Every structure is written in structure tokens, then in C-alpha cells.
């Protein structure tokens, strides 16, 4: 159960015809650092051609640049981050982030942690967890570069978040996943259904831990860059049926998630999730959850 034909056929059964795509590089302006000045115009003066991403408030596609946009003074000063367009969606789905206690459960390398800090105006607290030492270094560099002031970083497995003895208002679960072919040209060669199922199991464990540490009026945003339903719709169906969570309507780029996957009927509320097939962006999946009321 592997190979391009196997996976492409699965996508067809989910309603999407495979095509090769090359998602464009994107940046996100860190509003907390630019103090109203026009960083996009400034990059334009350097010869960087940008196009506003229509479904993002602070996101821009890099149309053309003669040099790496990760090597400008503006980047080094934390005025913007390099962040793929679909990856900018999850943090924007929370309501009312300012002053909240937020868990970024799988935080490294930190693009979304910085985005959360930006959306929070550096208020409240972000508790950022990860386990990989090298990726944690990258996370901490991002926090420094982007002048994040409200984060605390622990080397801790997301499945042990309850060890902190905290309850969270908002939880971002940008969980480890199998990825997708749009950002990994060798994806079909090295991924198997076994990998997908192993990741799905890990993701359920993380979801279960998140449900434990979520405040009664809190919100979870679950996201993967996987196209495989085991890591997406099936996990959310499981969470709804086993963790006392319910999905919440979201308005964002992407298609309504299917509620029938390979002949399996899922909870109708899974429809509220968004599946983003590769094209303008990489492949992505997002869902917002809260405790059942």
C-alpha cells in the first residue's frame, strides 16, 4: 500500500484529480514589528515582487525576487516571516487571542508561534512545546528575530502537556504528519500507508492530551499538511466520538471536508473541517474544535 498510483487513486476517491503543482513561496508580515510602515513597499523597492494572498490578511506570495527573501535586513529585523500560504491559516482561526493562555503543542520551527504572538500583540502567554533539539534551536532563533515577548519554550512531548499543570484557552495542534507531495518531490517514493497510520495514531494521542488540558470554554485548532484522511477527517471523527469535542464552523480558504471516506460514514459535523488540495498552496487540512456544550 504505497506508490504514486495508490495514493493518487485515493485522492480521486476523495474527489480530487491529481496534478503536479508548485506552490509559491509566501511571506507573512509581522504587524507587531512594522509599526504601520509599508514593509511590502520597502521590499518592492529592493526588487521583490509580491502579490497579496486573497484569503490572508498579512500574507503575500513572492512572485519574483533576484535574491533569497530570507536574507534581507527586513527579514533579519523580524518585519516578516517566510511562511507558506496555507500554513498561515490555522492561527487565524482562533477567536479573541489577546491576553489568552495559548498552547502551541508542536511548535518548532516556530513560524506559527510567531504568528500567534503577532495576533496576540505579544499579550498573554504562549506555551510552546517541541521535542527535537535542533528544531527547538530554530524556534528560539525565530522568537528572538521576531521579538516575541510572550512565549515560554519547553522541551516536552505534546502528549505530556498535562505535566505542566496548566489549562489553556487556546490550543494549536499543528501536529507532526506525513506531509504531502507538493512540498516534497520524493513524497510518493518514500511514504506508505503504514507511515500514515503510525502518524494518525500519534496525532490521536496528541488530540487526547489537548482535550485534557483545554479549558471548558477553550478552542483547539487542529492542522496537518497531509492529504491522507486517516490523519485528518478520520481523526476528527474519532475526536468527536471519543473526546467530548465538537467541531466549529470556520470561514477560510479550502473545501468542505468529506463525511464519507472510502465507504466509511463519518460524523456529519466533520463537514465543518477544511481540506485544501494542492494548487495555489500546498495541501493542508484544518479544523476547529471545542468541548461539547
Amino acid at each position, binding site marked *: 500500500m504505497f506508490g504514486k498510483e495508490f495514493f493518487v487513486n485515493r485522492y480521486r476517491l476523495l474527489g480530487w484529480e491529481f496534478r503536479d503543482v508548485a506552490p509559491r513561496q509566501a511571506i507573512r508580515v509581522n504587524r507587531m514589528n512594522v509599526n504601520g510602515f509599508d514593509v511590502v513597499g520597502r521590499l518592492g523597492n529592493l526588487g521583490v515582487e509580491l502579490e497579496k494572498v486573497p484569503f490572508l490578511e498579512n500574507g503575500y506570495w513572492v512572485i519574483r525576487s533576484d535574491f533569497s527573501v*530570507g*536574507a534581507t*535586513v527586513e527579514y*533579519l*529585523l523580524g518585519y516578516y*516571516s*517566510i*511562511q*507558506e500560504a496555507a*500554513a498561515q491559516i490555522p492561527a487565524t482561526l482562533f477567536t479573541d487571542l489577546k491576553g489568552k493562555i495559548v498552547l502551541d503543542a508542536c511548535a*518548532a*520551527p516556530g*513560524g506559527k508561534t510567531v504568528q500567534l504572538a503577532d495576533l496576540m500583540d505579544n499579550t*498573554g*502567554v504562549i*506555551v510552546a512545546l517541541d521535542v527535537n533539539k*535542533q*528544531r*527547538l*534551536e*530554530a*524556534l*528560539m*532563533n525565530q*522568537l*528572538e*528575530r521576531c*521579538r516575541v*515577548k*510572550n*512565549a*515560554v*519554550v*519547553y*522541551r516536552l512531548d505534546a502528549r505530556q502537556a498535562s505535566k*505542566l*499543570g*496548566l489549562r489553556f484557552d487556546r490550543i494549536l495542534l499543528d501536529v507532526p504528519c506525513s*506531509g504531502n507531495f507538493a*512540498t516534497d518531490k520524493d513524497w510518493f517514493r518514500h511514504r506508505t500507508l503504514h507511515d500514515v497510520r503510525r502518524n494518525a495514531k500519534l496525532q490521536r494521542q496528541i488530540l487526547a492530551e489537548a482535550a485534557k488540558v483545554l479549558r471548558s470554554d477553550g478552542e483547539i485548532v487542529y492542522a496537518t*499538511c497531509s492529504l491522507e484522511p486517516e490523519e485528518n477527517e478520520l481523526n476528527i471523527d474519532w475526536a468527536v466520538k471519543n473526546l467530548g469535542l465538537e467541531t466549529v464552523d470556520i470561514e477560510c480558504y479550502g473545501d468542505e471536508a468529506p463525511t464519507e471516506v472510502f465507504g466509511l460514514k463519518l460524523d456529519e459535523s466533520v463537514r465543518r473541517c477544511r481540506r485544501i488540495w494542492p494548487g495555489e498552496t*500546498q495541501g493542508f487540512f484544518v479544523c476547529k474544535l471545542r468541548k461539547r456544550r
Partner: protein
Amino acid sequence: MTEKDVVEGFARLFGAELFLNKGFVVRNGDSYFLLSQKLKNLTEKRGSWLYAGTYLGKIERKGVFHPSSSLLFIIADKAKNRITVDDKAAWLFICGRDIFKEGILKIEGSRRKGTYTLVFNRNGECLGYGRIARNLEKLKGGLAVKNLFDIGDFLRRERPAVKEI
């Protein structure tokens, strides 16, 4: 010396007076952080954190305090010793190079050899700091400021880069 003294002492090298709240500057291993009240409360009860609040810098070999870019930004508004450089010198500086007299647009504060000075670009953005290598009063050209730290360090320290998704 308290954590606060270390950080404020560093700021004074540039003629900047910082008044940090003592209990909110904390040392974690070799690193120094400035915490908010919320972060202070949270971290006090939960040890073993790696990073919190605003990273101020760390003590390196031989006990020398090495500042973060965040600390330089905090100091930037208050520093008396400042050098503004042209675009070419600014670019070379963030590539780790020293500053030559020819690239300097403006000098504020001390011009004496050995003085620590912040380095700014034309937009007034702090790019790092250095130490005046020769008395700038009489200097006609050549090496003027030795680069001690610049924001290009973010690129150099992350090699090999971790892929951002």
C-alpha cells in the same frame, strides 16, 4: 552582581541607562531573559524551560556577556554612542564585516578608540554593535569600527537551516 546589573552594565557601555525591574530579569543557565508578570508566575512554578519572554543575551566563554538582538533594540533608543552607515557598509556589516570610515554617515557620542557603539542603517534601524578601532576624530579612512555582533548572525547560526513549513 545580579542579573539586572549584568544587563544594565552592558547597556551603559553605549551610554544607555536601563531601569529594569529586578525580579523580572532572570538567568536560566547561561542565558538571561526579561519576563512579564504572567510569564514570571508561570515559569516559577514550572522549571526546566528553555526560553521565556525577551531573550537578553548570554554569558559566553571567559564570562563575557553577549547580547541578543532584542537587547540591542531595547538599548537603541537610549544609546548615546551611535554610528549611522550607508547602504553598502550596512550590508557588509550584517555580513559580519567591519566598518570603514568611508561608509560612515554620522557619528554620535564618543569617537574615542575602544568605545562601544551601536550601528544603525539609514532608516535608523539597529543592525548590531561594534567597538571603535581607531580614534574617529582624526581618522581619514580605513578600518573604523570592529564588528562584534550583527543581525546577520541569525542566518549564520541557523546553518544548516531547518525547513519552515
